[in-house]
């Protein structure tokens, strides 16, 4: 999902930076408030952020004959919402643009918007919709993770399509072209990532159910039910 340095006109770089910055500031504010209220949230932040680090370092092969990164943002999204997740992603993406030439400082805003903001925002919407239903919590985590991953790449496609509309068909037809490169590659990765992070969530739930209940991520009843199944 990285847009490479230099591949986005500066006007668009500016637009995405201007969208990303307030979201990051909101993330800093939320994180301060959260950690001020409950220090026990810090280890959970460590685990969920750790998975963003691990998964976004893996380049996995896919059915299109090219490789792509999972995003790993699902757990952080479920636990802390999109703004804190955006902050985690910003750290990873900064590291990758400084040392790995994946993305770059001018396109960092655009990459934060896709991986850290729109993806997690969609995931968070799904989580809020499903949280109060009787759906199994693991299925919820799976769907949040897989959709956050998918929509990261849909957003990248959109960002590129807006900057590079095709001569015939404009933004729509180049969006379809970019989706063919990014989103199709991502489908199997998103599914596997969703399943793996649902499994990780099971271990969090087994070891530290009280933090999930206290942060009101899932209700005690749901947690109790999830502990006895799967």
């Amino acid at each position, binding site marked *: 999902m990285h847009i490479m*340095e230099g*591949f986005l006109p500066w006007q668009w770089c500016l637009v995405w930076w201007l969208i990303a910055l307030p979201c990051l500031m909101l993330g800093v504010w939320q994180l301060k408030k959260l950690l001020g209220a409950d220090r026990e949230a810090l280890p959970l932040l460590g685990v969920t952020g*750790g*998975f963003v*680090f691990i998964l976004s370092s893996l380049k996995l092969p*896919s059915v299109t004959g*090219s490789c792509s990164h999972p995003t790993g943002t699902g757990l952080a999204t479920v636990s802390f919402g999109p703004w804190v997740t955006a902050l985690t992603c910003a750290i990873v993406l900064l590291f990758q643009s400084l040392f790995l*030439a994946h993305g770059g400082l001018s396109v960092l805003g655009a990459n934060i918007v896709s991986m850290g903001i729109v993806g997690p925002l969609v995931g968070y919407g799904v989580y809020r919709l499903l949280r109060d239903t009787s759906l199994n919590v693991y299925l919820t985590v799976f769907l949040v993770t897989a959709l956050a991953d998918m929509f990261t790449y849909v957003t990248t496609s959109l960002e590129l399509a807006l900057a590079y509309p095709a001569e015939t068909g404009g933004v729509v037809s180049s969006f379809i*072209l970019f989706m063919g490169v990014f989103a199709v590659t991502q489908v199997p990765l998103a*599914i596997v990532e969703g399943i793996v992070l649902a499994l990780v969530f099971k271990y969090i739930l087994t070891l530290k159910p009280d933090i999930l209940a206290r942060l009101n991520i899932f209700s005690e009843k749901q947690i109790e039910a999830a502990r006895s199944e799967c």
Partner: protein
Amino acid sequence: MTYRYTLELIAGMAVVAFCVLFLYTSATMSGAEFAGSDNVGSALIAELSGTTVENFQPIIPQWEPPSGEIEACLFALQAAVGGILVGMVFGFWYGQARGKIAE
């Protein structure tokens, strides 16, 4: 309460299926280079804007890992940082949970 392994089983099968899919793709698809989709995307940008990939110069000067080995090293470092974080916290929680039982 007995421990159930349904999710572990599903995850194991998903990973195996993923590997099989990869092996099948790499064996049957001609011209599958497994390059990064970032690069494929960049090539498409060049095609759409009617120039070559080399024409795109960084707006902000950028350091690039001099070789694939160094890039792999730095990626491994990134994963290691994540792994340490995850391992540390799970260990901490495990210890806490054990401590509670011992009391």
